[in-house]
C-alpha cells in the first residue's frame, strides 16, 4: 500500500478511535449516573444545578466530538483525493483531530468548570473552518467557469469547512454551560445559553441540509432514500428554531422526536453510503477508487452530531426556563 493510502487509512482510524472513546466515556458516565435534580422554575434563566450543567456540557462536548470525527474522516478522504495540493490542506486534519480529542476529554470530564485547553482548541477549530471556507471559495472561483453549478458540484465544497466551525462553536458553548455549574446563570453574550445552542444547531442543520441536498442533486437522487436527509432534518431544524425563539420550560415532544430521528438518520446514512460504495464499479474490491469517488461514508454522521447538540439544547430549554 502506498504511503499516501496509509495516511488516509490512519486518519480514518483516528477518527473511528475518537468516536469510540466518546462512546466509551458516555457509557461509563451513564452507568454511574446520579439522581436528577428537580426542575427549578424562574423568570430569568435559572441557574443550572451542578450536575445538570455538567451533564449538559458533556452532551455538548460529545456532540462536538461526533461532528469533529465526521469532519476529520470526510476531510481526510477529500483532501487526500485532492493530493494535499496545498500544505494548508493538512490544517483541518490537525484541528479536527484536536477537537475530537478534547471533545472526548470533555465527555469524560465531570469537573464543574471550563477547561482552558479545550476552549483554546475549540476556538482554533472554529477559526479553521472560517479560513477553510475562504480557501474553498477561492478554489471555486479560480476554476474555469467560476461560481457555476459544475464547480459547486466538483470543486472544493463551500459548505464543508463550516462543519468544523460548528464543532468548535458547540464545544465552546459546552464549556460555557459547564462554567455555570458554579451556580451562575446560563447566559452567553447576554443571551440564554439554551436558546443560543438551539439557534446555532438549527442553523447548522440547515447548512448541512444544503450541502447534502447539493451533493444528492449531483447524484441525481438516484435512490429515493437520498431525499430523507433533505426532508427530515429541516423539520428538526425548524422545530428546534421555533423552540429557540418560543416559550421555554415546555415539553416539546415533536422536537425531541425529530432530533432523535435525525440522530439515527446520520448513522443509517453512513450505512447507505457504504452500500453506495459497493454500488460503484468494482465495489469494495476497488475501494481505492470507490471510497474517494463514491458517496462519502463519514459525511452523514454530521447530522448525528448536530442533532445530539440539538437534544442537549432542548434539555436546557425545557429544564431551565427563562421566561
Amino acid at each position, binding site marked *: 500500500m502506498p504511503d499516501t493510502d496509509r495516511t488516509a487509512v490512519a486518519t480514518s482510524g483516528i477518527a473511528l478511535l475518537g468516536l469510540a472513546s466518546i462512546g466509551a466515556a458516555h457509557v461509563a458516565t451513564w452507568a454511574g449516573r446520579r439522581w436528577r435534580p428537580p426542575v427549578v422554575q424562574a423568570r430569568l434563566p435559572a441557574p443550572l444545578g451542578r450536575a445538570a450543567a455538567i451533564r449538559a456540557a458533556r452532551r455538548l462536548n460529545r456532540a462536538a466530538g461526533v461532528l469533529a470525527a465526521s469532519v476529520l474522516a470526510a476531510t481526510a478522504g477529500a483532501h487526500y483525493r485532492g493530493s494535499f495540493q496545498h500544505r494548508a490542506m493538512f490544517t483541518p486534519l490537525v484541528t479536527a483531530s484536536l477537537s475530537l480529542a478534547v471533545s472526548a476529554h470533555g465527555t469524560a470530564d465531570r469537573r464543574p468548570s471550563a477547561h482552558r485547553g479545550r476552549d483554546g482548541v475549540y476556538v482554533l477549530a472554529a477559526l479553521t473552518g472560517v479560513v477553510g471556507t475562504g480557501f474553498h471559495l477561492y478554489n471555486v472561483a479560480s*476554476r*474555469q*467557469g467560476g461560481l457555476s*453549478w*459544475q464547480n459547486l*458540484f*466538483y470543486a472544493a465544497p463551500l459548505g464543508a469547512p463550516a462543519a468544523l466551525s460548528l464543532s468548535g462553536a458547540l464545544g465552546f458553548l459546552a464549556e460555557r454551560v459547564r462554567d455555570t455549574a458554579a451556580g451562575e446563570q446560563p447566559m452567553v453574550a447576554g443571551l440564554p445559553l439554551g436558546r443560543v445552542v438551539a439557534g446555532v444547531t438549527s442553523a447548522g442543520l440547515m447548512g448541512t441540509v444544503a450541502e447534502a441536498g447539493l451533493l444528492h*442533486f*449531483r*447524484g*441525481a437522487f*438516484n*435512490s429515493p432514500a437520498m431525499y430523507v436527509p433533505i426532508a427530515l432534518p429541516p423539520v428538526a431544524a425548524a422545530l428546534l428554531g421555533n423552540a429557540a425563539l418560543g416559550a421555554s420550560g415546555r415539553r416539546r415532544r415533536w422536537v425531541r422526536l425529530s432530533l432523535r430521528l435525525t440522530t439515527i438518520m446520520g448513522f443509517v446514512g453512513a450505512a447507505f453510503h457504504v452500500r*453506495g460504495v459497493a*454500488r*460503484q*464499479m*468494482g465495489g469494495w474490491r*476497488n475501494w481505492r*477508487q470507490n471510497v474517494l*469517488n463514491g458517496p462519502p461514508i463519514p459525511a452523514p454522521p454530521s447530522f448525528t452530531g448536530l442533532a445530539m447538540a440539538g437534544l442537549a439544547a432542548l434539555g436546557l430549554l425545557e429544564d431551565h426556563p427563562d421566561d
Partner: protein
Amino acid sequence: MSSNPSSDPLAAPRATGGRAPDVFKVGGWVPMRQFDEDEPVDFVVVGTGAGGGPLIAGLAEGGFSVVGMDAGPWFRPLEEFASDETEQNKLYWTDERVVDGANPMVMGGKNSGKAVGGSTVHFAMVSLRFRPEWFKSRTTLGYGADWPLDWREMWDYYGRAERALSISGPISYPWGPKRPRYPYRSHELNGAAELLGRGAEAMGYRWTPTPLATVSAPHGHSHPCVYRGFCRFGCSTNAKQSQLVTFIPRALKAGAEIRDLAMVGRIEVGADGRATGVHYMRDGKWRFQRARNVVVSGYAIETPRLLLASATDRHPDGLANSSGLVGKNLMTQSNQAVFGTMDNEVRWNKGPPSLSITEHWNYDDAKDFHGGYCWMAQGPMPIEWVTIQTGSRGLWGQRLRDEMEKYNHSVGLKMVGEMLPDERNRVTLHDDTDQYGLRVARVTYGWSDNDKALIQHALGQMQTSLEAVGARDVFRQENDTNHLGGTARMGFDRQTSVVDADCRSWDIPNLWVCDGSVFPTVGGVNPHLTITAIAMRTADRIRAMAADGTLNHPRRAA
C-alpha cells in the same frame, strides 16, 4: 476460448432457445420471445443501433410482433470488453468496403459498428440537439435541404430521448431554446476539458460540460462512470447508455426477438409491390423471415447497400429508389483537430474524451460559408494518437518516438462540422464480394469548397484557442471525418426524397428506413441523439397510424 459456443459471441449466435444474453450479468441470460420464420411478423427491423434499437423497443411496447436482426454479435460488456484498443476492433464494422473519390473516407471505428446496439456500443456518447434552424436550413439559412419535421416536435422527442438514455448534462445549456433539465448531472471535468474552457473564455466564447450518454451516478443496473477513458472501445462498466443496455433490454421485455449474427442480404418484394420479408444469413445458412413491414436501420452505408442489392426486375435500380436518390447525398462530418503540448501534465486519457464543448460557431452566423461546427476536448488512446501523428505529420522513426512520448502533456480540440449534401458523394455496389458473398459497398467522397472553407475556419479558431492556453508545437490534423448521414433522405415528395417524415419509403408502403440515412442535412453536432429521437418518433407515428387505419394504406397526395 472454451468449446461452449455461448462463450464466444463471434463464433455462433447467442440469442437462441428462447433466451438472450443478459448484458448486466456475467454469464447471465434473460428470456426472449421467438417468432416463427414462416409466420409473418408485424415488423422486421434490420439493424439494432441508434435507429433500430429505439424503434424495436417502441414497436414491441406498442404491441407489434417485432424481430430485430443484427449482423454483429451480442456482447456482455462486463466480461467481454477488454481495456484494449486493438482487441476492441471487434466492435467495428471491419468487413471490406472500398473507398475512393477526392477525399476517400476512413471507415471502421470512425463511423460503423457491428454489434447488437450498433455504433452506440463504441460511440463517444456525445448527445447534442440540432439547432432548430437546421430542420429548415434551406428556408432559414439558405443551404442544404429542409426536413419535413418541425423542430418543436423534435424538441419534445429530444427530451424523451435524453430521459430514455439518462443523459448527464449541465444544469443550463448555453445555446438554443430552453430545454428541460438533463436527467443526470454533468461529469467532473478532466484537464483537457478545463483547457477547452480556458481557451474559450480567452476568446470570449461560451462553453459547457458536454451532455454525455454515460451516467454520473448509479442508474438501474448501470454503474456510474469510473473515468477509465476507453469509451470509444466499449464501456466495460455499463455506465455508457448505449442502445445495447437501454433500448435492447426494453425491447426484450416488451416481447421483441433480436437475432444476433444475422446478416440480411436481400429484401424480398412480392407481386403486389409490397415487401414480404428478408433473406438473412445466420449460422452459415441463408434463411427467410416473413414480415408485414420491413425497416432498414443499417446506417448510411449498409442501408443503401441493402436497398440497392435488393433490386428486382420491377425495381432495377434498387428498392425505394424511384427518385434515384438511394445512396446519394452521403454526408460525413468534418472531424479535424488541432493538437499541442502543454507544460502541465494533462493526462488526457482519463475520463470520457469529450467532456467539454463550445457550440459557438453553430449559433453564430457571421461567417462566409454555410453550416456550423462545434469543438470538443480530446483524449485519444496511444494507437489513436500514433494514427494522428503519422496521418497528420507523416512522422516515423526516432522523431515519431520522441513526439509520442509527449503523450501525457498533449492537449487537443476536435471539431464536429457540418458537411453539405452533394449527390456526387454516394454509396454504390462494388464488384468485390464479402464473406457472405454479397457485393461490398463502394463509398465515394469528396469535399466541396464550402466544406473546405468551414474546416479552415474551424482549424484557425481551434488553434487560437490552444495557443491562448499556452500550448506549444501546435499542429493540425486536417484529414479526419466522422459520423454518417444521407443516402436515403427524408423529404416532402417522392421526387426529391426516399422516405417521408415518418421514415416510410415513398415507393413501397411497407418498407421503412430509420437511421441516420434519412438526414437531409447533418448539422454541426454528433448525430446520435437526433437518430434516437427520430426513431422514437417513428415508433409513435406507426402506433398512431395503426390506430387510425393508415398503416397499411397511407393517405398521400398523388
